[in-house]
């Protein structure tokens, strides 16, 4: 397709990119509907307050909560909890042991938990009687003076276990903020001198779920037992940004319920903000369906694809998206393997030259091994094949790169970090980037994995989980490297390398600065590493018996292995750990509880690499995948994550105006809602540092490369500091 007006594609794209770029309005408004929490977003009807009478009552309730918050603040001012410890003559101790609550054969101690023993006077004043930390074996022995605890004026006593809830930077020094995680009341009459045994205290503290293969944290009820909470500002951000989109979806769903014939897909699309492809199509009709755009987005769009050099032909590259064949799926949506062959143009951007689709393309022929090849010479069929490949690519990018590659991948590091890092300075390095990922993943479980994706794509929930586990089976911090740019036009790879350089520089600086303390608390690093390894998934294909597979299956698995290994930079030859009869994918950072001199060089290098990897994934990698969603899946007919077989022989190889293969009305509005939700409701950026939890040095390094990033179409101010959407 060629453009029909005077503007060049490049200028049109730049213009549209600027026009459709998502910004943030800080002005909040009352008497507007709002969400109560991020976890109240739903694929169907979110828990949104829109009725005016309800809003009035909500206003009263809001005032009540404000009053309550005010009273709590007043209480804190009147009855401060000072750090002074009361007591001189140490003659008594609180003893006990703290372990993880999980039903494991062996007790797993929780080390270095901050512990405090407080008394409250009859006049409400707090008296700190003791403080300390649990030891590496989980035991504790808090000394205190018995008479201080048993004074007539003391009305109650309690033992508190805290955890780090927030990191706060002033200049370059980090302060940890603790919140109480668990408290135990102690009767004064029980204290009689000597030791008082609180026995073994099991805590449901960042426990691993037992129902899935990958590392996921236990959250049964978001608002109550989640191990951490969103900040208020985060919730307010989603309120402000998401409400118009939510109302749009609600309107559509109501209309569809009342009379589906009264609304069309085009009207649904038009109701949502215009995205990049729609903007370009208005100025350059057909451009976004062309080969140039196809190749450019595969390289520099949401897909940020891996171009694997052809083994035989120079200058030829393959991008492969593997479909549903070996995963649990439904019979309604097509999801064949899409193998795309590219060549580089003189401008350095790729152009597709052949697309091979393997698998069913219609509802009639269900042979999973059927193959069809398409080239530009196929005319309209070529356009349709590109659409199929684009849709497959969208789904694979969302599930493999976005969810598995960032969200699920990060969660395993987050759980291990929060379970084990406390006194080590690594907590202040990593927590600002690992926070909230478990919360958003829990929400994603509900609305995406259980609801939307199984209804709008070929996957079932089980299929998605199996796929995610497989993809995570080729993700290891140790062998990961940045993508090698194919050409000067490979903006993504160049931006990735630039950001990686900044991240490693920042991490190097941090670790060198705090090396002594890191060494001192190496036990925490060891426990972190053990948790990470023990709960990682098996290496991809390590638990499959190839001897029972037919040759085609074997070949396909080999093909998957080859491509995914390259895509995620996985090294099958690295020595790995066997745990519980499985070959675990994640490499350990260390195998010793103390940093041995002979291992120091290698293990500090491991630590730097792993920390850089975690921060990189949480920031740049996730931002890229998330931010470009609206550009590449913000137009239903352009890219919709799933094409239905329909009832014709042509199946998914039909023009865009064949709505029988496009998502239906409900799924279309849901998809647009998702695309906008995920791209428009970001909060927590490195340079903006809204919660002052990012080391300013990291922001400085990033800003120093602002121009270089801008040249690659990356706005540094939009790079998130964590994965929370």
């Amino acid at each position, binding site marked *: 397709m060629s453009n029909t007006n005077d503007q060049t594609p490049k200028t049109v794209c730049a213009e549209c990119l600027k026009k459709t770029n998502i910004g943030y309005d800080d002005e909040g408004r009352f008497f507007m509907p709002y969400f109560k929490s991020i976890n109240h977003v739903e694929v169907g009807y979110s828990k949104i307050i829109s009725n005016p009478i309800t809003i009035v009552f909500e206003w009263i309730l809001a005032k009540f909560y404000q009053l309550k918050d005010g009273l709590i603040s007043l209480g804190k001012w009147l009855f401060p909890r000072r750090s002074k410890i009361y007591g001189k*003559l140490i003659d008594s101790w609180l003893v006990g042991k703290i372990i993880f609550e999980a039903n494991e054969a062996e007790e797993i101690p929780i080390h270095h938990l901050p512990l405090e023993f407080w008394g409250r006077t009859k006049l409400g004043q707090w008296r700190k009687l003791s403080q300390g930390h649990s030891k590496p074996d989980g035991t504790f022995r808090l000394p205190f003076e018995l008479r201080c605890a048993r004074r007539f004026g003391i009305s109650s006593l309690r033992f508190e276990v805290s955890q780090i809830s927030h990191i706060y930077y002033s200049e370059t020094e980090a302060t940890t903020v603790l919140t109480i995680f668990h408290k135990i009341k102690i009767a004064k009459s029980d204290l009689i001198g000597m030791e*008082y045994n609180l*026995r073994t205290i099991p805590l449901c503290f960042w426990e691993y779920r037992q129902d899935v293969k990958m590392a996921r944290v236990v959250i049964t009820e978001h608002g109550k037992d989640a191990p951490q909470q969103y900040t208020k500002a985060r919730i307010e951000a989603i309120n402000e940004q998401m409400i118009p989109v939510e109302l749009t979806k609600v309107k559509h769903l109501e209309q569809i319920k009342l009379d589906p014939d009264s609304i069309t897909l085009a009207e649904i699309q038009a109701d949502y903000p215009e995205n990049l492809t729609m903007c370009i199509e208005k100025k350059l009709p057909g451009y976004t369906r062309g080969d140039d755009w196809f190749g450019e987005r595969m390289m520099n769009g949401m897909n940020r694809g891996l171009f694997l050099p052809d083994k035989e032909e120079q200058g030829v590259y393959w991008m492969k998206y593997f479909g549903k064949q070996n995963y649990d799926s439904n019979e309604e949506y097509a999801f064949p393997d899409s193998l795309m062959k590219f060549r580089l143009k003189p401008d350095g951007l790729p152009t597709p030259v052949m697309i091979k689709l393997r698998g069913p393309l219609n509802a009639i022929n269900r042979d999973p091994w059927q193959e069809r090849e398409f080239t530009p010479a196929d005319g309209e069929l070529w356009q349709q094949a590109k659409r199929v490949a684009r849709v497959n690519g969208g789904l694979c990018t969302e599930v493999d790169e976005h969810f598995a590659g960032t969200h699920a991948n990060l969660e395993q590091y987050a759980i291990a970090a929060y379970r084990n890092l406390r006194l080590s300075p690594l907590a202040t390095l990593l927590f600002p980037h690992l926070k909230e990922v478990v919360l958003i993943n829990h929400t994603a479980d509900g609305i995406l994995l259980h609801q939307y994706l199984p209804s709008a794509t070929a996957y079932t929930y089980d299929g998605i989980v199996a796929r995610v586990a497989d993809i995570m089976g080729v993700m290891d911090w140790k062998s990961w490297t940045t993508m090698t740019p194919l050409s000067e036009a490979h903006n993504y790879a160049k931006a990735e390398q630039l950001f990686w350089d900044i991240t490693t520089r920042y991490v190097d600086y941090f670790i060198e600065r705090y090396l002594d303390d890191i060494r001192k608390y190496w036990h925490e690093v060891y426990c972190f590493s053990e948790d990470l390894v023990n709960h990682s998934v098996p290496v991809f294909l390590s638990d499959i018996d190839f001897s029972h597979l037919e040759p085609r299956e074997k070949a396909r698995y080999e093909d998957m292995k080859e491509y995914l290994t390259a895509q995620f930079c996985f090294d099958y030859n690295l020595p790995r750990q066997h745990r519980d009869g499985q070959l675990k994918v994640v490499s350990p950072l260390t195998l010793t509880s103390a940093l041995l001199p002979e291992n120091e060089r290698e293990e500090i290098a491991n630590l730097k690499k792993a920390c850089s990897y975690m921060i990189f994934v949480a920031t740049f990698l996730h931002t890229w995948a998330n931010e470009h969603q609206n550009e590449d899946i913000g137009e239903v007919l352009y890219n919709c994550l799933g094409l239905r077989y329909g009832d014709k022989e042509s199946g998914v190889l039909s023009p865009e105006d064949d709505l029988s293969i496009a998502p239906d009305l409900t799924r279309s509005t849901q998809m647009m809602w998702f695309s906008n939700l995920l791209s428009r409701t970001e909060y927590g950026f490195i340079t903006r540092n809204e919660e002052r939890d990012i080391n300013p040095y990291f922001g400085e390094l990033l800003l120093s490369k602002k121009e270089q990033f801008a040249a690659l179409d990356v706005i540094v101010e939009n790079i998130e500091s964590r994965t929370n959407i």
Partner: protein
Amino acid sequence: MASFNTSPMTKRTSIGSFIWYMITSAWDKMVLWFISKMFAWALVVTLSIPHRYRMSHNNGIAAKGKVRIVDHPAFPPHDFFQPGRTFPARVRHASATFLDDAMNCIRSLSVKFSEHHMESPFDMEMNTGPINLFWSARSFLQFAKLRKQKWGVEYHDYYRIYPQGLEGAKVSLRRNPTSFHNLRYHSLTPYLFIGKDGIKRYAKYRAMPFDKEPETGITTDLSDWDTCNQRVFPNETRSRNYLKDEYKQRIEKEGAKYMMQIQTRIAADDDSPEIFNNQIPWDEKIFPWQDLAVIEIEEVLSWKDTLMTSFSLNNMPKSLGFIPAKSIYDYNSLNYMRSHSEVARKARIFSYKLFGYPPEIPYDDNRNVSEWSGKE
């Protein structure tokens, strides 16, 4: 280790804080006195009169003989402990709380430097084990409250929350020793010792077989959670009175001979309160045990005489008496409480006159009990 606030008493003391200190001290002593008295009267009302019981050591056997202070004492000279001085003596061995010698019990040896069942110039009560199960009046009350005995299992809750109590139990309980005679008994709590030189000291006492026969009945690696289980072994063949029977036979055959020892240390103004803590034995290298007296026992007393034999911490010269206590948390408050239990002793003796003597412990299969069933 947390840093701790210094109390006002270490700084220059103001009049106000001094008065406050006096008031609180007086209050603490009053509380101690009140609780000690109440406890004693509670014993009278609940045990001594209605049941004719001692508080704990009801299962015992008494005997008589003589006690002779060693000829060449290595401990500081004292008017009472003159070298070679001889007194008539009564001793009483007992198994604490249960009426069954074959249970896992703390065993005791009480010595009276007198042949009278009550009057005496010097009494000493000792138990097996170098550390105690409680360390103050307050902890003793908690110990009593959390007993919750049922068929030979007791102090389960107490051991769970007071690790030192559990440790004391582990080292003090004796299961199926071959004889009362070969056990080691400790006073645990320190007493005053103001010798001829007028220097204030503290003293602890212990007794052991004269020939240092190895101690029996010690259980190693006692389970944390099963220490509360003091029941007889399944298919136990030893009778409820086997230890008392052995002692009788021993006395008849060869008598019993003990060495009583003393450990002293000089009192200093800056002594840590922990030196009175019966959970912390004094270092034997710094404060060695010295031979005090040889006790020779020649005749076992009858059951009635055994019942009548009673001991009191008030039967001591003032220079050897108990150390004053300041509060119910004070480590010396245990002896204070003991010294205030005279009324319970006397009430029990009086109850024998009213209701007769409790029967001897029968040779039956009613095991694991701590009370007479009334069917004896």
